[in-house]
Structure formats: C-alpha cells, structure tokens
C-alpha cells in the first residue's frame, strides 16, 4: 500500500508541534500511518470513532476543557459530519481543525470515491470554512501551524485537504 510514510510523518509532527494532544479518527486508507503514529504516541489521546460526526462532539468537549484536538477523516466523513460542524462547532464557536483526506481528485482510481471528490471544496466554501491544500512536503508544517492559529483566533472550523501528491507514493 503506497501510502506515504514520510508525508504522514511530516503531518503528524506538525500536529504535535501545533500543540495537538487529541486526535479523533475514522480509518481510511490514506490515514493508516497517521492513525498508527497517534496510537503509538503516549502523549496523544486517540479516539477511534464509529462515525466521523462524533468527532465534532469529542473535539468540542476537548476544546472547552482546554485540550487542543484535530479530526482525521476522509472527505466522505466530512460529508457525514456536516450537521455537527454547523450545529455544534459553528453554532458554539469551536475551533475545529479538520484534516480531510481528499479522495476523488485527479489520479483517483477508485470509482466510488469520485463523486465526493467533486463536491468537497464547494461544500467547504458553502459552509464558509477556510481551507488549504497539503500537497507538498515543503509547506506542510507551516500550513498546519497557520490553520491551527486561524482556528484558535477565529473560534471556527478550519480544514486542511490532504492531497494525493503528499499522501500517495504512486506515479499516476
């Protein structure tokens, strides 16, 4: 499985450097290394979910209690979380850092991922959620730090799209 270990390590280290100490996650192929890194890290509380929307509640609770957290999910998990994002995180002004694996973009081979890929950015815009792409190792650390800073200062959800060029070591 050519999921990039190096890309995942960069992301994980940047999350740690930004003070993230709780990660909620629902496994998907591109996230396997990140989830294992969190599981192996005694400084990180990993919350494995049954459905992604739960993670909005978990992150809201953690934030109110003073712990920085992030959600790890596929873009279809983002789709499944939208009510929670709107009626918990946005309604209650919760800084919610979302790392969303961006399936269904250029290069996607799985037919079942393609529909969600086509609506992800439009939905983020419709929800007025600021987002940036993580696609090159050069900007991972800086963008994660800046996303966390904006989430904290605005008390709002912010998204980072984990893109194929960073997450997948496959030529096509």
């Amino acid at each position, binding site marked *: 499985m050519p999921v990039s270990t190096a890309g995942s390590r960069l992301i994980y280290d940047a999350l740690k450097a930004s003070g993230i100490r*709780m990660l909620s996650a629902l496994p998907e192929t591109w996230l396997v290394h990140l989830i294992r890194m969190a599981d192996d890290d005694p400084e990180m509380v990993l919350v494995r979910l049954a459905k992604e929307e739960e993670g909005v*509640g978990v992150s809201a*609770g953690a934030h109110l209690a003073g712990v920085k957290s992030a959600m790890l999910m596929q873009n279809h998990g983002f789709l499944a979380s939208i009510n929670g994002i709107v009626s918990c995180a946005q309604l209650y002004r919760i800084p919610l850092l979302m790392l969303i694996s961006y399936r269904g973009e250029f290069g996607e081979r799985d037919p079942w991922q393609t529909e969600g890929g086509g609506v992800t950015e439009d939905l983020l815009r419709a929800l007025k959620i600021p987002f940036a792409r993580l696609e090159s190792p050069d900007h991972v650390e800086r963008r994660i730090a800046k996303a966390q800073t904006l989430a904290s200062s605005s008390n709002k959800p912010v998204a980072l799209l984990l893109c194929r060029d960073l997450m997948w070591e496959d030529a096509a």
Partner: protein
Amino acid sequence: MSFRRLDALKAVYDRLASRVVVTIMGAVAAELQSIGHRPNFFYLQHAMGLASSLGLGIALARPERQVVVLDGDGSVLMNLGGLTTLARYRPRNLVHVVFDNESLLSVGGFPTATATGSDIAGIAAAAGIPRTATVRTCEEFQRAFDEALAAGELTTIVAKVEAVGPSAYVTELSLLENRFEFQKFLRA
C-alpha cells in the same frame, strides 16, 4: 410506571451542582435551567446526538473531573455508534443518563423506536458499556445515579420518564454566554 424528568433532576440536583454536566437540547436543558443554572452546566442546544460525544471529549481531556451527560432517547438513537465509542474508552469519570420518554417531545411528541420496544440499556450493554440500568421511579433513579457516581465506572442509566416537558424551550441564557462561561469554569 414512570415519573417526571423534572422530579428526577430535582432529586439529584445537589449532586449535579458539583460536577461537570452536559445536556441535550429541549426539555432537559430548559428544566435543568428552571431549577437553577450553574457555570458547570453546558446545554448543547442542537447537534442532536453529540452530547454524549462532547461529554466523552471532556472526560478524556480531564480525567480528574466527574462528567454527567443528560441525554434523551431521540438523541441516543441518532448516535448509537457513539455508545460503542463510549464503551471503547469507558471513561471511569462519565455517567451517562438517558431520559427515555419514548417520544420526540419538543417536535410534536411523535413516538421514537423505544415506544415500540427498542431497549437503550440493552443496546448500551451490548455495545460494551460496563454498567447499565433501566429505572422507572424517582427513588430508583436516585439510587442508580448515586451508585454510578460511587462506582467510578462508565454507566448508562435509562430513566423511563413521562412525555411531559416545560411550556417553552427558549430560555434567558444565550448559547454563547453559556459556552464561554462553561469553558472558563472547566479551565479554571
């Protein structure tokens, strides 16, 4: 046999007063506020289903605090998977109360699936919640609640209550005032 949620809340109010409390929207929030709001009470006035997840986030972030989630049948049924997540981490500092009036009271009283036999305590136990109980009187509820607080183990208590609630759901307390006051309390 069943009893009123308001009476259940009054019966344990002094215990709630010293703990971190997260409630769902609607009748539970309005009734608890009618008894007396406190800075350690947070009312999730939307996002149905997520109160238990939010309580889990607090319980994991602050293991030294005892957290009480006041949930409802309609809300739990929207997030049954959340019971498996609670069970997976089974925080010892979390007591999960489900007021089960077998209806979606605040939106017209339509019956939920617990009215036709779905058993939330049974589902919770099967999900792996280590302690569960169903109670049908105020005395039983009070006893089960005190036992859960003393047990130091994740407990789901399903309280079969009457489908009656307050005349209004909007209260004087604004959502964001509650949210920031609660955060301040938790971080103090």
